[in-house]
């Protein structure tokens, strides 16, 4: 019984970490649980959240994308430029820009067979360069009220971006667990060769994963521009790392095939609570980064100590499946 609870606590590691964090911040600041702060926290998390969802799906599919920060910056400029044509046009334009960048990444990785790390590192620089020349290296502001409402509108007490994020999270969860597409993504993440041998069209799926992360970054770019009332060329320099850190923190594996949407959301909430809480309590900026590092190291170390069995299991399953394929008639 206790063992099972511990097991669950490890699987959903964000929950115990979150309990510790919330207890600490509750103890040290009496405004932590104010409605205002909780709303802030959710709004801030949801801006990163759309990217975290996409990244979680990509990681489960065995890919990851370092270029989302640059895509975020580029598409925030697109959003500001389209702002006067209506907020939805701006949002769609930014998302499409992101998706287009995603196609580029996807083609590089799946057709040109460049390693995802290298390919998206390269496009990270290239897209940032495009953004810098497109923007002339200066921020561009907008005062279009409709556009500014995109991130600040509220539905009851909840900011609209939080609602959107919630809906997207549910959809992502359902797709990943209940549909064939979701299971196929997971199987590609587990073993590309195995999936290919089973007739999965790898290229198609891989490109889609990058389109997803790109579109997520584009969407967030529009929200960011709406929140700041401007697009800034310095935006998103460390977004990719923060998003990947959040998702990994929650328990999604960097090695593909393992992870759930709830884990990604958990990791995100932990990171955001930590960040907002430390600002609230007044932790010195120097310690803040140290604490981030400590927590991430702790989590991935425990992960590395416990995780290998899953990989061995996957490899075993892979070997068996291959064996069956090579010798279907053999007696077992």
């Amino acid at each position, binding site marked *: 019984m*206790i*063992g099972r*609870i*511990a*097991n669950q*606590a*490890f699987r959903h590691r964000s929950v*115990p*970490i979150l309990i*510790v964090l919330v207890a*600490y911040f509750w103890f*040290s*600041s*009496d*405004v932590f649980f104010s409605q*205002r*702060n909780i709303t*802030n926290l959710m*709004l*801030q998390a949801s801006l990163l959240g759309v990217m975290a969802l996409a990244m979680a799906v990509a990681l489960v599919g065995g890919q990851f994308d370092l270029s989302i920060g640059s895509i975020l910056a580029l598409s925030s400029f697109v959003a500001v430029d389209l702002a006067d044509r209506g907020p939805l046009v701006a949002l769609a334009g930014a998302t499409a820009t992101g998706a287009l960048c995603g196609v580029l990444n996807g083609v590089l990785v799946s057709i040109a067979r460049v390693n995802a790390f290298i390919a998206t590192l390269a496009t990270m620089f290239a897209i940032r360069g495009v953004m810098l020349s497109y923007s002339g*290296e*200066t*921020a561009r*502001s907008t*005062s279009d009220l409709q556009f*500014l409402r995109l991130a600040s509108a509220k539905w009851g007490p909840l900011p609209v971006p939080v609602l959107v994020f919630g809906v997207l999270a549910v959809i992502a969860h359902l797709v990943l667990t209940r549909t064939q597409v979701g299971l196929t993504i997971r199987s590609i993440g587990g*073993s590309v*060769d195995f999936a290919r041998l089973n007739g999965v069209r790898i290229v198609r799926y891989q490109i889609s994963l990058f389109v997803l992360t790109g579109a997520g970054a584009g969407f967030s770019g529009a929200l*960011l521009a709406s929140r*700041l009332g*401007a697009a*800034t060329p*310095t935006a998103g*320099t*460390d977004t990719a790392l923060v998003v990947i850190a959040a998702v990994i923190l929650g328990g999604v594996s960097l090695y593909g095939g393992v992870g759930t949407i709830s884990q990604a959301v958990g990791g995100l909430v932990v990171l955001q609570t930590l960040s*907002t809480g430390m*600002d*609230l*309590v*007044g932790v*010195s*900026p*120097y*310690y803040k980064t140290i*604490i981030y590092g400590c927590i991430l190291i*702790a989590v991935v170390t*425990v992960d590395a100590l*416990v995780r*290998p*069995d899953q990989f*061995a*299991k996957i490899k*075993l399953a892979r*070997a*068996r499946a*291959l*064996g069956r394929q*090579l*010798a279907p008639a*053999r007696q077992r």
Partner: protein
Amino acid sequence: MTIPHSYQQEAREEQRLEKKVRATSNRAKRIKRPLSLLVLMTAAAVSLTACGGGGEKSSSGAKKGGEFTIGVMMNTADNPYIQSMIKSNRAECAKLKFNCIELDGQGDAATQANQVDTMISRGVDGILFFPADVNAVTPMLTKLKAAEIPVVSYGNRVLEGDLPLITAAVDENSHQQGFTIGDQVCKDAHGAAWKVGMIGGVSGGYTATQRAAGFEEALTKNCPSVKVVASQPADFDRAKALSAAEDMLQAHADLNAIYSHDDNMAIGARDAVKAAGRASRVSIYGIGGMGEYLDLLAQGKVRATVFQSPVKFGTTPVETMAKILRGEKVEKFVFFDSPLVTKENAATIPREW
């Protein structure tokens, strides 16, 4: 991925993997024991508390006996000048018995937007605001205004349209600084048609734009024959300035001077000039009054700078905020001047950063 060649091989592989699975799941079980998990969680909590102890103790939003809580929103913390500023900020806060919450914006407007929200929910009495990007502050300042929290901006100057949203702006007058150095270049050129290379700060930023504009204005006014022949941004970064200067020296064999938007970059430029063996022919100019640079200046290895005291820059906003909170009237712009420093007076300037 290896494909087993024979059934025997495959069977052996399978056995090996199975053994591994058993071994690692045992290991996993050991770790998954609740006790270890408890220890781990406690360790995390303790480390968090220990680290948190390094920061300032929170006294929550409520103030005790006239003690004010102020959010100090820094643009970034990874620059020697700003670090000196933060130190004097902190000292002034301690002197006035303010509870100052330091926040590092990491040079990113989005980070600062989050911090503004957090400070509003914390209910601080005032904000010292060093904007990372002045084009993206309107929504933040509007929120602060709505929450009736006074804002003193410093470091980067907010745009004309945002001025009504802040209570006061502390300003080092970047344009004047650029002008002072431009004027000095004219004097040093003695009427010769000097060719000058300019190494800029963060391009598009107010400081860099104004330091360039002031400098060029001085040249056109006082010595039109001196021309800026090359201009490159180096983000106030010494290493970037070094390579920018190398490029300039390569491209212009007859360069007479390099003007950098801060001393940190000027030292980078000086290193490049020295390495190219042209130290005697290329004069170096900076802005700021960094200790390392002032030493070089006293030795005559660089030509001039202006002294923009980080201590003053750190204390003035806190003083201004104190006045505002006490209900005294303050000017919209609080300037402090940056005197010219050459070899003659370099030794008398305090080394503040």
